[in-house]
């Protein structure tokens, strides 16, 4: 009945939404922000810890949201470790493009391959902001803002 939904709800997305690996508040963090999707009431709080070298060491989140927003936060957390803020902000830009168009113009790297399953969201305009919520919160956290909105 929902065959054509396989593109949106890929196995990896269902899996990450059901059992997020990074769905926890970090005991120790140096950046955090709340993400808010006012149209649907979804909320997410993101925690980031940098190592002594300035690279991201760990990411965790607490979320109340749909399968897409939780899976997106979890996959994001997965690809952030070991990256600098600068790299991460570039990645955020490319992810936004992926969510909106299903493609990324820059040659794929490992991180974007991990995020690729979320590209299916581009066929569902009302769900794009579910996928980008965590990334909005990430940008806010790294820029020292406390709140972000996916509106």
């Amino acid at each position, binding site marked *: *009945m*929902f065959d*054509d*939904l396989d593109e*949106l*709800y890929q196995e990896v997305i*269902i899996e990450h939404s059901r059992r997020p690996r990074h769905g926890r508040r970090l005991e120790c963090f140096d950046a955090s922000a709340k993400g808010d999707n006012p*149209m*649907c*009431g*979804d*909320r997410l709080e993101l925690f980031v810890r940098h190592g002594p070298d300035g690279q991201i060491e760990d990411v965790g989140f607490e979320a*109340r*949201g*749909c*399968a*897409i927003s939780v899976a997106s936060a979890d996959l994001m957390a997965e690809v952030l470790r070991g990256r600098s803020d600068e790299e991460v902000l570039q990645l955020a830009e490319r992810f936004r493009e992926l969510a909106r168009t299903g493609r990324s113009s820059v040659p794929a790297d490992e991180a974007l391959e991990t995020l690729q399953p979320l590209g299916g969201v581009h066929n*569902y305009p009302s*769900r794009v902001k*579910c996928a980008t919520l965590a990334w909005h919160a990430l940008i806010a956290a790294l820029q020292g803002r406390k709140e972000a909105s996916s509106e």
Partner: protein
Amino acid sequence: MNSAANAVTLAKEHASKRLAEARADFPILAERVHGRKLIYLDSAASAQKPRAVIAAMVETMEKQYANVHRGLHWMSERATDAYETARAAVARLLNAREPEEIVFVRNSTEGINLVAHSYGRGVLKAGQAVLISEMEHHSNIVPWQMLHDAHGIALRVAPVTDSGELDMQAYARLLEDGRVGLVAITHMSNVLGTVTPAERIIRMAHDAGAKALLDGSQAIVHRPVDVQALDADFYVFTGHKLYGPTGIGVLWARRELLERMPPFLGGGEMISEVTFERSRWASLPHKFEAGTPAIVEAVGLGAAIRYVEEIGYPAITAHEAELTEHALARLAGVPALAVLGQAQDRGGVVSFTLDGVHAHDVATLLDRSGIAVRAGHHCAEPLMRRFGLASTARASFALYTTREEIDALVDALGKVQEFFA
């Protein structure tokens, strides 16, 4: 069978036959979505339009359109007639004493804002309070918060019981000190489907020295409303949920209240004389209708009212009650599904949650089956918080909804669960 009873039976048969044929009046119901038949269960957000409404609007623009109330020529007189005929239709629908008590606004939100601004700032005094309920739409919360911030008029909130009904004991207590100047409560919840005991709410408000406003956005779609029998002071509703167009809504208020209230917006149409020193206000209802109004939309609303009257509230109410009962019975059989709100008196709106599946995911999957439902907080965040929820999915019914459509919803929900299992 005597002839009177016979006439009643015949009338009922005619009504149900007319209702059974009503689907054909709505062209959009023949559309397909994602290759499937459209099953539109989102009428509480906005209802679809019958051909009679569409035709009336087209005819106005093609045959009798000009600006209104400046009628020195034939076209303007025709347009003014059509516009004022629509106002008379609204007065008849609400059983208002006179059409002059009907103010055309854009929607319920604007009607409430008009009252908050004009009655709130012009008549209520700092230190008085406005009393709303926990199940209000944001449109009946935010204008009062703005009034509070600007004029120090307190905002009180009557709680909702676990079954989703207004807590009448708490409501009575909140009225006790006599400081409430205005009660503003929904006539039917857009989330819970609860129909509130309007007569009792109004009587208690009056006993405590308060005026009462009812938000009839949902209620008027499902039941007849008689503002005189209710003894209400203000009543608002919006056209687009009553099978009419967007951009047109209604504020009804007692004449003596409208006369005491200062204008809301200033401009053309609402004055009788303008000099640079001062202006004098036009008579009712024009005092509250600044600028060129939504002429075509008002005509559309008039046509929608005639359409509803033709089918008849008895048939509509009976049909929707049966659909709601059927939906509640079928949904009770879906495992891990919980319906929000178990009010005794309810209309055709059913909100629900599905264990382990977010409402947005439910809505996206249903959409792919051609089924349109709403998912989210339904512009009633405080109510959702009251029940510890972030969002629900909501199916809402209209006169064109069928049992088969509800069965299709239930079947699809079973498949949604399988999909996420």
